[in-house]
């Protein structure tokens, strides 16, 4: 263990600590929103989760690109784990967004929230990634095909975003206004703290899953070697 790379346990402890601090900040430091009241608090969880999901998809695509360029086998598992975490956080974004929509607009789903629609499209896209991955025999071919599909994902994010913005012109002629007032200093601090906590949590989950998957692979290789 070196000083530059803290252990997983330390990081996990730090993530829990940060999450605790953010809960305190969200409920006791940040002022209540004048329009939405208590329900606005979910903003401090929903938006960081969404940003984390993007980051995880980006990480997955970056590792996929590294795989294609360097043919390093280990990037396959890293890319897969990144996308897996992204899908988990994407599902959480849909759930928290849905709860927020219910609290502030009275409906569980609204097509006028571009962010929610984008996450639905991405969720479908990345679910198909898992279907693709698990229907190809393990090997270099699967690694490369998964990597190419993961790269399509990062191109799809901005293109879909643009498409959904354009579509809302003819599906919903009225422009939806986001919450009016700007964030106060305390609100912003609470938001940043929560964002840091969730990003760190995602990173810890990513490292844990990766370690588990690697152990699994090593174990299988050992078993095969012993059986021979």
């Amino acid at each position: 263990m070196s000083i530059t790379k803290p252990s997983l346990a330390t990081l996990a402890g730090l993530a829990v600590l940060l999450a605790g601090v953010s809960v305190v900040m969200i409920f006791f430091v940040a002022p209540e929103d004048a329009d939405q009241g208590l329900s606005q608090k979910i903003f401090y969880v929903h938006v960081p989760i969404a940003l984390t999901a993007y980051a995880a998809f980006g990480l997955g695509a970056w590792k996929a690109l590294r795989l294609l360029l360097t043919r390093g086998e280990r990037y396959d598992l890293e890319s897969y784990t990144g996308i897996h975490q992204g899908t988990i956080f994407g599902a959480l974004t849909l759930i928290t967004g849905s709860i927020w929509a219910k609290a502030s607009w009275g409906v569980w789903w609204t097509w006028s929230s571009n962010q929610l629609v984008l996450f639905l499209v991405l969720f479908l896209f990345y679910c198909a990634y898992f279907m693709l991955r698990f229907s190809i025999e393990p090997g270099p071919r699967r690694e490369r095909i998964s990597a190419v599909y993961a790269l399509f994902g990062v191109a799809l994010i901005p293109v879909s975003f643009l498409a959904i913005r354009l579509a809302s012109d003819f599906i919903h002629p009225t422009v939806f206004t986001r919450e009016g007032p700007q964030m106060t200093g305390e609100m912003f601090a609470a938001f940043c703290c929560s964002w840091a906590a969730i990003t760190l949590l995602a990173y810890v989950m990513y490292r844990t899953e990766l370690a588990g998957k690697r152990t699994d692979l090593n174990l299988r290789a050992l078993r095969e070697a012993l059986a021979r």
Partner: protein
Amino acid sequence: MTDYLADVAALARKDLRLELRARDTLPAMVLFVVATLVVFHFALPGGAGDDAAYGLLWVALVFTSLLGLGRAWAPETEAGALDGLVLAVSDRSTIWLGKTLAALAFLGAPQLVALPAFALFFAPLDGPALAGVALASIGLCAVGSLVSAMAAAARGREVLLPLLFLPLAIPLVVGGVGSSISPDPGTYLAFLGLYDAVFAILSWAAFEYVVTE
């Protein structure tokens, strides 16, 4: 450069010739798109208006392209001809480009029937709507021939292809419907052009990794 184009032309010609001899995809696509339009007539409520019909035209076009793409790599995967092709060509992306051009021709034929039929049954199509169809077809075929090559390497490819393809086709449907019904179709046509450029370049660059062992 001329070698590259000669390979592309030879590959596209091969697909067209195979189809002209066997005729197992094109008649199916034409019948499918007409049958879909008839189904839509009964699915649309009486006073639904033209806008809803334009939306359904795009559903019909996307699913028809899906039908063609499902068969696109059948000649190559049967008898392992793809390995031979990969070894034979000067550059592997020519296989993708040839397949995309052939897929465009395959999609064009049912459209030649479907668009007049749509104008006859439902609502008139103007210039921007036709331009939208042309631009979206390029995107559908460019992405579709790559994604169907991925699906061809997997088990259960018929089930997998729509799952891989539809999320990628959503922006094309947005652009296509927008160019048919919007009073300002230029934005949507520009968006379709952008989509075609981004995904064609990406597919062209990435195809090599999909087919090499």
